[in-house]
């Protein structure tokens, strides 16, 4: 694949004096001066605009363009045509998917990829196995009633570990909730995972959140928030911060196919492109958003872009955008109603340059974001793509969208039974025949870096460590009840102090009504 474009090393500056203008740079006062020539102001205005956010040239100049075939509306020059031609809603062929390891763990002929050392490959494999084992054991623990909730990453181990392997510890990670592998790679211990799931005193979250809502500032992994896609704009903000501080790092955020329907996804990609922010968007397109298959989620070719669906879901006759203009969803509702009534009419809605989008990998182009589709179960392909994306993102100050195709083998969470909406055979097939962990094992074994002895030894060792971690976490003390009132603000204000006092008094008066394993300091 290779890196695109020339690496742009022009440092940006935020003060006027470093720029060369054809006109003397005025100071702030004269800018508002009505005597200033309009054309000079226009030149200066457009120069200021991009002074501190430099990246590739915009596509607004057409070399060899005949002046009378070109229109220059705001937004740049565009050739006009007398032929009415609609841009097709879907491509002739779906966007291609990058993969270098086949199902048998053999390298595909003619593939170009980043070399991975034995040490790195073995660590990747071990972490994938650890993640898979941790998921199995913690899921069982929930079933046994030892923890209240759990959510697995089964089937998506390659995305979790391989993306993490290609990043550095300085890259800020904003997860959705199906990416504990990234934290594992960075050194979060099995005990630390167990502590969070049991909400004990050692949990960094102080027992306030549900299981799997990990967060660790020392691992640069921002605490999981249950809300879908809200972390995507956070990542753009973090990238903005890194850019301001000129750090050699990027922000990375993960989300599923379902998350791309949220308004935050749309706006975050748009912003990242406009602001030229060094952020990598990783979409785990695993086919399902709880019970909603991707064909009911969107109509574009996947998150990269997408293909036609054969399901019953209603087809909306107009393009919609999730840019926050409230009348647009209203129009979609009206169209749905017309369709139900079989009326020969459509709904029409108008909006400004907010911009519409169609697809997810192809949506990348709609926002001006470079994108790629990759086999999410091929760790080598993922490693290579993220490695390249990171280089591009940091050196060129640009966002990158990666759509990793995979399959959600597990249920959505312990509150879900996915056999209710999909075939058990389908799940079984993906679990046995398309397991990314097995695939990678075949490759490292073929290189002589792993063996079946190493396999059984490692698996049993991890299992023992996990069971031990659970035992320790289960027995550990819970955080004191007073932690309910701290960290709401930096310092507890008087109303919270009062409420804490009231709670302590109430527990003291009715101890039998309160759990005995939660310490209550005097």
């Amino acid at each position: 694949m290779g890196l695109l474009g020339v690496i742009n090393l022009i440092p940006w500056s935020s003060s006027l004096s470093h720029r060369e203008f054809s006109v003397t740079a005025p100071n702030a006062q004269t800018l508002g001066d009505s005597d200033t020539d309009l054309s000079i102001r226009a030149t200066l205005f457009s120069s200021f605009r991009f002074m501190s956010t430099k990246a590739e040239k915009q596509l607004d100049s057409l070399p060899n363009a005949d002046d009378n075939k070109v229109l220059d509306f705001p937004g740049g020059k565009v050739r006009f045509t007398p032929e009415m031609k609609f841009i097709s809603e879907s491509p002739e062929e779906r966007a291609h998917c990058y993969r270098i390891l086949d199902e048998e763990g053999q390298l595909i002929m003619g593939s170009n990829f980043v070399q991975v050392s034995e040490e790195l490959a073995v660590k990747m494999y071990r972490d994938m196995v650890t993640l898979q084992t941790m998921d199995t054991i913690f899921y069982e623990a929930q079933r046994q009633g030892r923890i209240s909730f759990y959510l697995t990453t089964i089937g998506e181990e390659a995305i979790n570990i391989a993306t993490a392997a290609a990043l550095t510890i300085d890259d800020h990670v904003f997860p959705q909730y199906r990416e504990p592998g990234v934290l594992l790679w960075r050194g979060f211990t099995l005990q630390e995972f167990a502590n969070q799931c049991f909400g004990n005193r050692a949990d960094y979250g102080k027992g306030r959140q549900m299981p799997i809502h990990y967060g660790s500032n020392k691992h640069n992994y921002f605490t999981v928030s249950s809300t879908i896609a809200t972390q995507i704009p956070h990542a753009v903000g973090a990238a903005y911060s890194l850019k301001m501080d000129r750090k050699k790092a990027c922000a990375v955020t993960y989300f599923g196919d379902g998350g791309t329907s949220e308004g935050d996804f749309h706006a975050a990609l748009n912003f990242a492109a406009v602001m030229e922010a060094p952020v990598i968007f990783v979409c785990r397109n695993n086919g399902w958003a709880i019970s909603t298959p991707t064909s009911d989620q969107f109509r574009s070719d996947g998150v990269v872009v997408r293909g036609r669906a054969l399901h019953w879901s209603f087809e909306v006759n107009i393009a919609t955008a999730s840019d926050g203009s409230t009348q647009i969803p209203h129009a979609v509702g009206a169209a749905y109603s017309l369709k139900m009534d079989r009326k020969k009419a459509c709904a029409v809605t108008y909006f400004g340059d907010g911009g519409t989008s169609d697809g997810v990998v192809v949506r990348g182009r709609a926002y001006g974001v470079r994108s790629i589709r990759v086999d999410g179960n091929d760790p080598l392909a993922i490693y290579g793509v993220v490695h390249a994306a990171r280089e591009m993102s940091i050196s060129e100050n640009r966002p990158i969208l990666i759509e990793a195709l995979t399959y959600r083998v597990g249920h959505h969470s312990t509150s879900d039974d996915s056999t209710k909406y999909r075939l058990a055979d389908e799940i079984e097939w993906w679990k046995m025949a398309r397991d990314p962990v097995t695939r990678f094992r075949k490759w490292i074994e073929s290189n002589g870096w792993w063996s079946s002895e190493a396999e059984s030894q490692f698996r049993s060792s991890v299992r023992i460590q996990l069971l031990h971690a659970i035992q320790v976490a289960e027995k550990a003390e819970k955080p004191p009840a007073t932690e309910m009132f701290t960290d709401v603000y930096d310092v507890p204000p008087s109303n919270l102090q009062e409420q804490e006092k009231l709670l302590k008094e109430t527990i003291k008066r009715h101890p039998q009504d309160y759990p005995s394993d939660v310490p209550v300091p005097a």
Partner: protein
Amino acid sequence: MERDPTVCVMGEDVGHYGGSYKVTKGMAEKFGDLRVLDTPIAENSFTGMGIGAAMSGLRPIIEGMNMGFLLLAFNQISNNCGMLHYTSGGQFKIPVVIRGPGGVGRQLGAEHSQRLESYFQSIPGIQMVACSTPYNAKGLMKAAIRSENPVILFEHVLLYNLKERIPDEEYICSLEEAEMVRPGEHVTILTYSRMRYHVMQAAKTLVNKGYDPEVIDIRSLKPFDLHTIGNSVRKTHRVLIVEECMRTGGIGASLTAAITENFHDYLDAPIICLSSQDVPTPYAGTLEEWTVVQPAQIVTAVEKLCQ
């Protein structure tokens, strides 16, 4: 922004346009258009962006072009801004300032006349303050920027043209303190933002009629400064609240409850709360005027309280 390089501004038209009410005029030229960032029209998303930037070490000031637009940012403000410091176990802090013009203006229409303080007051983890004079606007803004907590600063559309001589040097106004505007003995009038001016106008009339009202600009909407308010109630025994929020679920409703709960024994009369009616703000000038509490109503209420 000069003192601290991590402070930045983001919002619609804050850059070269200088902001819808010119609050950020000249700043983009001075600090560059990365630090004074023009965002696309997606409130929930740029608020989210600000939260992410704050968690990574910046101190963003997020502007809602009109506070009403921040209703689109409710998800980020409630679920993330207010919560992430707590749910992360204190690992990540969110020192943002969310500010913008709100309140009833001059015929801006219902959608642009919202009183967001009503809707946001329940969110745990945020602080809310309302400025009302050039002096306290500067002080509160500086305090809000320096605070480690997320602070929502409510400005009022009709107060931007106020002129006042204020000190050039650095000063801050405490985020949790109310302001004593006019000490008095007969009645405690609690108000904030634009209503302060209606109250002061009514006060002139009241003084002529022989009353001595104590006027307090509560400034801190969350949490309430019950210390200052309590001292006043213990002195006058009568309370009148004058607010711009709707009757149902506004700041006045919460303040009434807090005072009754804490200072019940000191009250000689039930608390009177003057608010706007529970209607969307009409566009027609006369109707709009009738939805906002006017000085004459304030005078009548005080007379009733003091009978």
